[in-house]
């Protein structure tokens, strides 16, 4: 029995010591949510190209550029242009504008790139703020009607009065106006929509809705303005965004009537200018194109230097956080797979495959990624049949299947580029070896147990992927495991118990329940 004495002792220590350590750290305040969640940075490039129609033509491009403020921090700005001369110009109350000017003979590319770090703004508004009685002169700009913000129109005045007449305090009045605009149907359009048109059509995109909310506020004497910017997310896009600021209790407070942010501003809203302006203007009548190239980058800002943590790992240069995350979270995902295999009784292709699929799906998105995975496995798996029929040896057969996986990934990625489908392009990040082995296993299951069983195996693998995905996708787990690395010993302890657990699996219950029917 000494074998099991040592086993008991190991399990006991592996469970108790990590739990004690974690509890101690917890008590010491290691578990601070601010520390555990990584900070997100964006690398942004605002890119334009302009083509002169004739040689030696004088051209200009004007574009609003971001400035640091309470909400956002702009780091390492860099200007690029071959021939045009760049000159920044700060316009009071509007923003900073970059002006490129000069004469060129051929197409000119120019760009402004920077690093962005944003903070989510959440405003508290007092419940009993009165309506503004006297507005400072400096705000008169934000009180009257403009070309696209027709706050003096009867329809707008009537609606604003109707919505606010029984409201005694500012917050409730603004909420009534905001709620009205927010609940209007959203229409996807890139066209400029003015406030009145948005109201008459009963629907608009961001710019129409924002102008309408500003017009409604101004119509009842509340200073308001539009804010122009870009919603940051890893992408290449041409869409900018417009939202609203309303003067309440002596400060500007943000609202987004399209995406539903009341008195708050998400961290990834890049602010560029205030007021109703065009983000980019250029020499009229010449070919012009622009693009915002945005890449998200996660990073821990505050390092938890507490005792017995792994935060020091973050200082290794050249190790991307994504790789570190994969290593950190893999055992946890594998534990989940282990429990589902031995306690629930799910059968999966390989033990680690669901965890590895989940990890590789991060760049491509869950639903689409799982579909692509299943497709590649099935298609390459079917290759097995002619190869088997011709009596191709195991090693060459596997290499042929691996090459087929590579071919399908390359062609799907290429197709993605042709169709401008970003997710399809990201397929190239799939783990090739894992796919090959999965395809082979899929084919073997068809032969040994039939097509239905193979499909079931495939489905169960994807089901477990679905279960592992949220664990992997949560940024919280990185911070947790770096702070509480003793969790790995806890995992080993749990697996030692699982390894000698002799209970029946849930699937066995359904398969064998006829044995206890009577």
């Amino acid at each position, binding site marked *: 029995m000494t074998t099991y004495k040592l086993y008991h002792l190991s399990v006991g220590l592996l469970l108790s010591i990590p739990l004690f350590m974690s509890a101690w750290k917890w008590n010491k305040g290691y578990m601070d949510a601010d520390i555990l969640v990584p900070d997100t940075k964006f690398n942004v490039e605002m890119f334009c190209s302009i083509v002169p129609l004739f040689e030696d033509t004088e051209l200009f491009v004007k574009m609003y550029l971001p400035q640091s403020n309470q909400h956002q921090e702009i780091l390492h700005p860099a200007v690029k242009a071959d021939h045009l001369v760049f000159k920044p110009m700060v316009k009071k109350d509007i923003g900073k504008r970059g002006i490129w000017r000069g004469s060129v003979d051929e197409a000119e590319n120019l760009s402004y790139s920077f690093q962005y770090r944003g903070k989510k703004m959440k405003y508290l508004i007092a419940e009993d703020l009165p309506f503004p009685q006297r507005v400072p002169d400096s705000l008169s700009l934000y009180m009257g009607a403009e070309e696209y913000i027709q706050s003096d129109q009867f329809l707008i005045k009537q609606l604003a009065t109707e919505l606010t007449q029984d409201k005694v305090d500012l917050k409730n009045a603004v909420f009534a106006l905001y709620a009205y605009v927010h609940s209007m149907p959203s229409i996807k359009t890139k066209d400029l929509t003015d406030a009145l048109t948005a109201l008459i059509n009963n629907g608009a995109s961001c710019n129409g809705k924002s102008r309408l909310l500003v017009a409604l506020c101004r119509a009842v004497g509340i200073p308001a303005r539009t804010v122009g910017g870009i919603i940051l997310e890893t992408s290449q896009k041409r869409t900018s965004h417009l939202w609203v600021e309303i003067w309440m209790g002596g400060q500007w407070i943000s609202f987004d009537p399209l995406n539903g942010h009341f008195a708050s501003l998400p961290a990834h809203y890049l602010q560029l200018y205030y007021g109703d302006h065009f983000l980019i203007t250029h020499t009229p009548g010449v070919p012009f194109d622009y693009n915002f190239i945005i890449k998200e980058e996660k990073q821990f800002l505050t390092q938890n230097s507490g005792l017995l943590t792994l935060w020091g790992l973050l200082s290794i240069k050249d190790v991307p956080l994504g790789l570190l995350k994969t290593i950190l979270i893999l055992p946890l995902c594998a534990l989940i797979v282990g429990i589902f295999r031995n306690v629930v009784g799910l059968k999966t292709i390989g033990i680690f495959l669901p965890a590895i699929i989940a990890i590789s799906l991060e760049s491509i998105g869950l639903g689409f990624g799982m579909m692509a995975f299943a497709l590649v496995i099935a298609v390459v798996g079917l290759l097995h049949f002619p190869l088997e029929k011709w009596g191709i040896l195991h090693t060459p057969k596997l290499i042929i299947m691996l090459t087929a996986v590579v071919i399908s990934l390359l062609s799907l990625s290429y197709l993605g580029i042709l169709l401008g489908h970003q997710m399809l392009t990201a397929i190239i990040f799939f783990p090739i070896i894992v796919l090959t082995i999965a395809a082979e296993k899929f084919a073997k299951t068809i032969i040994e147990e*039939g097509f239905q069983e193979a499909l079931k195996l495939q489905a169960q693998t994807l089901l477990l992927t679905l279960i592992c995905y949220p664990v992997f996708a949560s940024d919280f787990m990185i911070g947790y495991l770096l702070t509480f690395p003793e969790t790995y010993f806890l995992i080993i302890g749990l697996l030692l118990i699982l390894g000698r*657990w*002799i209970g*029946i*699996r849930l699937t066995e219950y359904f398969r064998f*329940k006829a*044995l*206890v029917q009577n």
Partner: protein
Amino acid sequence: MRSFIKKSKKLQEVLLGINQRNVELIYPHNNIKNYKLADDKVLTKTVLEKHGLACAETYIVIEEISYIESAWESLTQYQKIAVKPANGRGGGGIMILKKDQNGKDWLSGGKAIAKAQVIKHLADIITGVYSLGSRDKVLVEYCIEPHPFFYEIFPSGVPDFRVILLKNTPVLSMLRVPTERSDGKANLHQGGLGIGIDMENGTLKMAYDGHRYYENHPDTNSQIKGRLIPYWEETMALAIQTSKVFPLDYLGIDIVIDKKLGPLIMEINVRPGLSIQLVNQEGMQKVLHEHPSLKGVLSSSMEVHF
């Protein structure tokens, strides 16, 4: 929910699940280094022949491609042979060859087969087409002629008995019979029928196809339940003898009954499947707990085995 808990508690006491099979039967009773004695058919037969246990006569074992030609010449003296990969799985690579009426040319599955095709198949086996790429051996042996008893139930294929033994004691047995759906194969998951066996009386119990139980064969309608098994005592004795000479304490032995030679060992399995419990409508855990000489082998329904 309450009935689920009640039933699963009961099932936990009766059924041998895969976790318990591995933790309490396979790992402690079978040493992994002896698995090859069961997995490699040539090694299995070496042990069987050494102890004079009945099995199909080995005609030749081919280990090198260069010997295929001469080996094949020596096989022309036989009328019917079975060609098997020593490490094949799930019946892959097995070829049954018969001489035609004039006794000169070979037939496979009723159709003429050229010598070149047979040689290619033998070379495929050796190079590992049926054994996951690792080199293998060809086993050529006497081709079994099933006892007429089986043909009364279903007129084709090779049915076999599976006896599970623990410490040389038979625990559960079943007879596996093909159906029209199973294409000559007798495996349950390939559409075959499993028939439970009353080991004491040597009679067949109900047949099970993975979904339902039958008293008669669903294709031929011939009676199954209650049918007396020929050579049953000899079959059991052979199984027990075999388990005694193998250094594996938990195993599944596959036995066929030949028309002329009676019971012959076909294969030995170190990880016999669990569906035999459904076939017999009896949980193996319960059988082991109630068996006088096997008491105490399993822990008494404690879920974590410490």
